[in-house]
């Protein structure tokens, strides 16, 4: 039991930090431009694939730097020549543009690297069990993932709060026009933020690629959860995204370990609910079976009860 709790906590925090790496970029982009980048998970996937391709020539470690930079450049170009042209047609058009972009990236990845998973390996340096607890080993690579996520968070925080560029970005988050009148090149700031946001997503991809399977479906599997995190945390709040990522990571990981269903709880009182009753399947489904659905329930509840998200300050 204790073993389960410890490992689930570790895995939950790990999953949460991975989500945060992705959500931080998305939050920055949303706060800046008001557009929810549907293609954010696709940039994550691109990062993993670029990292894989680089690892085939020079190994894993150079990919950790090169892949995010490359994807960041791609993102900046997309913003400059794509998003900016669509901006004048409104938020809906921007959202739809990123929607089409996600489509194209997924198809392009399938064309270039094939439809099956690719063999993105954990680097030899980290391919050992970090520690053993109650006969279960915990791989060192996962600890590395955790460390990288925390380091990135700290770097981002200090960048935003302690540097000049960070201050300008924070100002442009809430008062883009005023910042423009002060003489700063706001479109350039936008382009940089979009590029950095995509680069962060790519970094998450390079980190997660070897641990999770690198395949064309990886964007679609993480995409909806990402939106849940950003919206539950509060659109525009980095701290909220942090809290929400950890919460959802932990909830999902712990939920999988729980084998209780509503029918079991009712059974404690002595009543029986079998599968043939009305919605019997629902009462008999264990928490573990519905675990992936819980974030969406949370999303709907939060949006009804606390529309700005946990810590958000912007409405739409």
């Amino acid at each position: 039991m204790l073993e389960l709790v410890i490992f689930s906590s570790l895995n939950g925090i790990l999953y949460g930090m991975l989500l945060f790496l992705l959500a931080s970029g998305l939050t920055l982009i949303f706060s800046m431009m008001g557009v929810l980048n549907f293609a954010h998970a696709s940039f994550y996937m691109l990062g993993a694939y670029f990292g894989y391709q680089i690892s085939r020539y020079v190994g894993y470690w150079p990919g950790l730097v090169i892949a995010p930079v490359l994807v960041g450049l791609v993102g900046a170009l997309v913003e400059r020549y794509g998003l900016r042209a669509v901006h004048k047609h409104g938020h809906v058009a921007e959202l739809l543009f990123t929607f089409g972009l996600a489509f194209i990236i997924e198809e392009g990845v399938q064309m270039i690297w094939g439809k099956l998973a690719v063999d993105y390996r954990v680097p030899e340096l980290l391919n050992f069990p970090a520690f053993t607890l109650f006969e279960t080993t915990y791989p060192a690579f996962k600890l590395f993932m955790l460390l990288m996520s925390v380091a990135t968070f700290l770097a981002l925080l200090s960048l935003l709060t302690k540097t000049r560029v960070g201050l300008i970005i924070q100002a442009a988050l809430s008062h883009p026009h005023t910042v423009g009148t002060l003489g700063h090149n706001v479109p350039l700031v936008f382009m940089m933020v979009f590029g950095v946001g995509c680069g962060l997503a790519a970094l998450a991809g390079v980190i997660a690629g070897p641990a999770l399977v690198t395949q064309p479906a990886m964007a679609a599997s993480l995409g909806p959860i990402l939106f849940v995190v950003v919206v539950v945390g509060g659109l525009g709040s980095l701290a909220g995204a942090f809290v929400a990522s950890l919460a959802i990571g932990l909830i999902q990981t712990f939920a999988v370990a729980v084998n209780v269903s509503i029918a079991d709880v009712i059974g404690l009182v002595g009543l029986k609910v079998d599968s043939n009753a009305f919605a019997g399947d629902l009462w008999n489904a264990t928490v573990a079976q519905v675990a992936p659905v819980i974030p969406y329930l949370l999303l709907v509840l939060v949006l009804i009860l606390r529309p700005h998200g946990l810590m958000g300050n912007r409405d739409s």
Partner: protein
Amino acid sequence: MKNLLRSALAGVAFLAAAFGAQAQIKIAYVDPLSGLQSAVGEHGLKQLQFAIETVNAKGGVLGGQKLEVVGYDNKGTPQESLVQVQKAIDAGIRYITQGNGSGAAIAISDFVSKYNERNPGKEVLYFNYAAVDPSLTNDKCSYWHFRWDANSDIKMAALTNYIKTKSAIKKVYIIGQDYAFGQSVRKAAREMLGQKRPDIQIVGDELHPLAKITDFSPYIAKIKASGADSVITGNWGSDMALLLKAAADAGLQADWYTYYAGGAGAPTAVRQTGLDHRVFQISEWHTNVIAPEMEAFEEAFLKKYGGPNGQRWWYLRLKNQIDMFTNAINQAKSAEPKAVAAVLHNMRHKNALGVEIFMRPTDHSVFQDMYISSLGSGTKYDEEKTGWGWKTVGVIPAADTVIPTTCQMKAPT
């Protein structure tokens, strides 16, 4: 001059009649040819094409008629499958084959039954080579549906017959995907283990959402906590790869009995985990079941269609299907679906391994020898250039794989 013209016309008419009589017998292959599942769909199409080319090279059927396969992309969904089947029927094709996805298979079988009922004289046959939902040969069975892949219950019967002989297996954990297939695997496993090895303790029974889990470590933690020495799972695709990865990461010491560890991409995942000869699969064949005719056939396929990844032949059952189909046409002396169906109905056939397989007339299931094999080092042929290949650890003869059926199909008059 008039004579010349007349003989020329006669010659043209004769040639036209001759070519008309030589019209190709077409098979429609309805499977995903685009999107995420297309890797499997496209490889299946290549195998079908090669099998048919081999038949045509030997002279075709009925003394010279050639076979032809036409691919139709069903994009993996049941609704689109129906659109494509209708297109095939419009193009004059009377034989449909499909295998990827029981959802699409059930839709096609239903559609074909209704179509044949509403259009007597224009019947169409449906050859199922891989959709394993048991209902297709039980409560949803149809005279016009023929299945060459052992359904998931038959596979479990064979697997449990093998487990019966392995006294070292004491605690079994069942894990699967939460949909019809995973549920039927779990149900059959519980039933059959209970009958054949009541001493085995089923220490855990888990269904997880299909293709949604990215981190299986909580499940592995549960398996570890239960003390299981063997795990039975029907998982396929990324669910299989991620499950095995999590197991290797956590250092889980258990044997894995699977249905689809041989599927595209799975051997690569197994190799990455380093679980040497601890992952087993149940199948009707694998590349290291050596027989001269099959080996020669495989090498020829690899050379022509292997592609840059050296993808080998996967489905012995596809070869069985085409061989039995061509023999049935020759036996019936006609390519009319109704006549061919009457022959296929209870056909016996010697396959490329030299072993006899048979079609059961009650439900149109083919029964064949089943192989339990483990993936690891030291085999003649390897999978997906990993250096690891399949090694047979047990053979269950066809007669021992037969299970009862509830099918009440009615043969047409």
